[in-house]
Structure formats: structure tokens, C-alpha cells
């Protein structure tokens, strides 16, 4: 376990002892994340893995500026974050497409907002839809798409804006293994060409190792903490599929998995106790 922090590159996202608490209906407070300390350098690809309900989405919301931490600070490119994080693109875990726009309009809107002429935005959007394998579905409204198709439209919507920071919450969740790899390679390609800071939440540890520079593990909630931070030293550029055959990959996987498994079982035991921090 090598606590890693690259001092050379500027820090894109830094959470400093961020604690997030939710107020529950009965005036009690649920501390989801406690004193999270995480720095993502510019150009760094960080994957976050953790048991379900530990606070991964919460962490991304904080980095996006959608949630204010109860304590601690958030800095973006060394500036304290006030309000929304304008440098970030966020692919939400839940379905967040605009239901009143067709797939292509949903993608093009990211550019139109910046003032790109509509025609040009549409052309680029079509190109992006094609890259995510939905070139033929441009004129569908979201409700006419399957779960995986919607997710991919969302992916294109975020990527087309070319944000400096990418926040991705289980972006490949509802995709089949094969499409996942295609999308993963697409993401790596983009990231290699124009290094962004990426915060990538996934449940697939292999995927996390295959894609990321660092894998961060969170403990089970409540009061989840960051309990592990591994640097993945596999050579770049990587092919997601082939990298899995690497020996180093397997070692790392086993190491992280050991920690993770224990954590999940702990979390499962904890949250099961009725009358806990409900």
C-alpha cells in the first residue's frame, strides 16, 4: 500500500478532510463520509472502489460542488471551490438525460451551451454518438432507448464538452463486458490524447486497475473513510483487455481484493443491524 501523491503536477481536485453528513427526517444526522483526504493531480486517472452505499457518489457530488461538505475543504486547481465546479464534467449514476431531447440533441447541448453553432454541434454530436456505438439512434428520445444505450448517450454528453476534470459514477455499469472494454479503451484514448483528471467510480476492481493510475478504496459506511490508495504501475498505453494478462495486474488485484472483501463483509454486517445509525 503506497500512499501516493505526485507533487510535480498541479492538483486538479483535492478533498481535505471532507466530512459529509445528511440530515435525516427525525433530525438525526447520518455521516456518510468522514475526513476524506484525496488529491487528484492534473492528468491523473483515479478509480474509486468501495462497498455499496459507502459514499462514492457522495464524494463525486462533493467534488462537483453539488454537495457542500459539513467540514473540510475542497480545492479545484488550488482554488477553494465555491458553488459548482465549472471545470468538471459529471456522468451521474442515475439517469440524467433530458427526456425532452433526442439522443443527438442531448449530446449536442453540451456544445451549444458554450455557443457552438447548432449545425456544428450536431455534426460533432453525431460523431460522438457513433463512437459510443449509437450512430443509428440519434433521433430517439431517451425513453426509447435501453438502459445501456442511455448511459452511453450520457457518456457522449459529458465527453463532448471536453472538461478538464471528469467525474464518472459507474459509467459502464449497465453495459455488457465487451462494450465495457470498448468504452474503456475509448476513454483511455481520450485521456491519453489530452490528459484530464479523472475520478472514476466502479464496482469492477479489474476495470479499476486496468484503467487507473491509482485505485482508492473506501471503507463501508457509515462514516466511510478512504482506507487504501494504490498506485498502478502498469505501463501506458494499455489495452484494457490485454493488461489483465499481466502478472503485476494479478498481484495488485489480489492485494486490493483482500482489503476490499474484508471491508464489504464488515459493511454488510454493520448495516444489517436493525436500529443502527438508521
Amino acid at each position, binding site marked *: 500500500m503506497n500512499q501516493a501523491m505526485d507533487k510535480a503536477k498541479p492538483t486538479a481536485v483535492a478533498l481535505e478532510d471532507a466530512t459529509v453528513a445528511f440530515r435525516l427526517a427525525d433530525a438525526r444526522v447520518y455521516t456518510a463520509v468522514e475526513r476524506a483526504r484525496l488529491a487528484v493531480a492534473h492528468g491523473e486517472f483515479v478509480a474509486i472502489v468501495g462497498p455499496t452505499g459507502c459514499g462514492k457518489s457522495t464524494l463525486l457530488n462533493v467534488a*462537483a460542488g*453539488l454537495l457542500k461538505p459539513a467540514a473540510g475543504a475542497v480545492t479545484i486547481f488550488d482554488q477553494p471551490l465555491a458553488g*459548482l465546479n*465549472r471545470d*468538471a*464534467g*459529471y456522468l*451521474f449514476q*442515475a*439517469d*440524467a*438525460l*433530458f*427526456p*425532452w*431531447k*433526442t439522443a443527438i440533441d442531448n449530446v449536442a*447541448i*453540451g456544445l451549444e*451551451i*458554450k455557443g457552438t453553432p447548432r449545425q456544428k454541434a450536431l455534426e460533432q454530436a453525431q460523431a460522438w454518438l457513433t463512437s459510443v456505438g449509437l450512430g443509428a439512434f440519434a433521433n430517439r*428520445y431517451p*425513453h426509447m432507448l435501453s438502459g445501456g444505450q442511455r448511459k452511453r448517450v450520457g457518456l457522449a*454528453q459529458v465527453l463532448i*464538452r471536453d472538461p478538464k476534470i471528469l467525474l464518472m459514477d459507474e459509467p459502464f455499469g449497465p453495459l455488457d463486458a465487451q462494450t465495457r472494454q470498448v468504452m474503456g479503451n475509448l476513454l483511455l484514448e481520450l485521456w491519453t490524447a489530452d490528459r484530464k483528471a479523472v475520478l472514476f467510480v466502479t464496482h469492477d476492481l479489474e476495470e479499476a486497475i486496468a484503467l487507473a493510475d491509482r485505485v482508492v478504496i473506501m471503507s463501508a459506511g457509515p462514516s466511510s473513510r478512504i482506507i487504501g490508495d494504490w498506485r498502478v504501475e502498469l505501463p501506458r498505453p494499455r489495452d484494457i483487455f490485454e493488461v489483465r494478462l499481466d502478472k503485476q495486474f494479478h498481484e495488485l488485484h489480489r492485494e486490493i481484493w483482500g482489503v476490499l472483501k474484508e471491508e464489504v463483509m464488515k459493511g454488510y454486517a454493520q448495516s444489517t443491524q436493525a436500529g443502527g445509525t438508521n
Partner: protein
Amino acid sequence: MSRAALLLCQVLVAVVVLALWQVFTTVPLFGRILLPPFFFSNPIDVFSQIINWFASGVIWKHLAITLWESILAFVIGSALGILVGFWFARQPRVAAVFDPYVKMTNALPRVVLAPIFALWFGLGIWSKVALGVTLVFFIVFFNVYQGVKEVSTTVLDNGRMLGMSERQLMRHVYWPSALSWMFSSLHTSVGFAVVGAVVGEYLGAAAGLGYLIQQAEGVFDVAGVFAGMFVLSAFVILIDMAVTVVERRLLVWRPAAAREA
């Protein structure tokens, strides 16, 4: 149900209602006439009055005035309702401060305000438009206000994270999301716009259907009163159809109505 069958059913309903009306106003049941003709006239008289109006052409002038007033009241009232609704929804502080006053204003009996409208807007169409606007505005306002607040948080957050400015959020998120709320209120307020215009005319006017109705009422010509209301209602259906056409166009993106059980 096919369009033809639907139309047939609708006509059937009308026929039954008219027949009952005719029977109840002319034939005594259990020793008495259920709907005294002095208050209810009867369909035949009403229709001959309507035909008379259209045949002689006197109605057109009045109808045109009332329709014009209604449409103005509808358009102005809805536009104001939408604007203020959006504004309040996006400025929670403004909304919180003015909320009780808006509700108080909504409870003012418009009929009592008629002299003030007459004073400000004269006895021409504008005082009637003003009356209609005060009805339409509130109906649309409350719905748009709520509609904007009902926007899905995830979709809204997505819009914000995509970098939308407040104006772009309006256009791409709040507006389309609040549309179905808005249209619901528009369907209600079409009727109220007409009511406003007619009541306004009723309180003081030189022409319009309300004037015709009042004239008929003055000489206890109930057939005339009903005829006026009928003509009115028929035209409301037309305006409402126009609203529905716009609605269909703007809401193409919705999933088709829930599947049948």
C-alpha cells in the same frame, strides 16, 4: 375507440342531455315540471334563437368582441402567469416575501373591482381584458410556479454540471419540464378567460356576448341567455383545440400514454 365511435358517443351525450332538457321543461313529471321553463327555457327555443342570431348576423359583432377580449385576456394572463411563475420559482426569496400577497390578491372578488377597472381601462374592451387577466393569471401562475419547482433534481443537476447559465437552464430544463403543468393550467384558464370577458361585459359594456346575455336577461328572455352561453361555450372548445394542438407539438417527447391494463 375510433374517432368515429368517439364522435358518435359525444353526439349521443349531447342528444340525451338536450332531450332530457326538452322533456323536463315541457312535460310535467309527477305532477310538476322539473325545470320551470321560465328559468330554463327549452332547447328548441334556444336553438331557434341561435339560428336567428346567426341568420340575421347580429351575433357576429358581439361574438367577435367577446372572442377578442377572451383571447387577449388568455394570452396576456398566461404570459404574465408564466413569467411571474418562473421568476418566483427561480427567486425563492422574492417568492417567500410576496407569497402571502399573491394569495391575498387571488382572493379579491373581481366583480367588486369592476369600477376600478372601468376607471383605469375605460368601458371598452380593455376593462374586460383586465378582468379576464386577473382570473387567468393566478391559475397559470400557481401551476407554473409549482411546475418549475417539480423539475427532477438529477436532470437539473446534469444541466448545471453541463455549464448551463440561468437562462439556459430556463430554456433547456425548466421550461420543457414545466410544460405539462403549464398546459394543464391553460386548459383550465381558457374557460376562465371567457368567463372574465363575459362578466366584464355584464358589468358594463356596449357590445359583446355578455351584453347580449344581459339584455336578454333584462327582458326575462331565458332562451336568449342560454343561447348566448351556448355560443360562448362552443367557441371555447375551438380555442381549447388550438391549445391542444400546440401542446401536442411541444410534448412529442413524452412516452405514449400508459399502456392499457
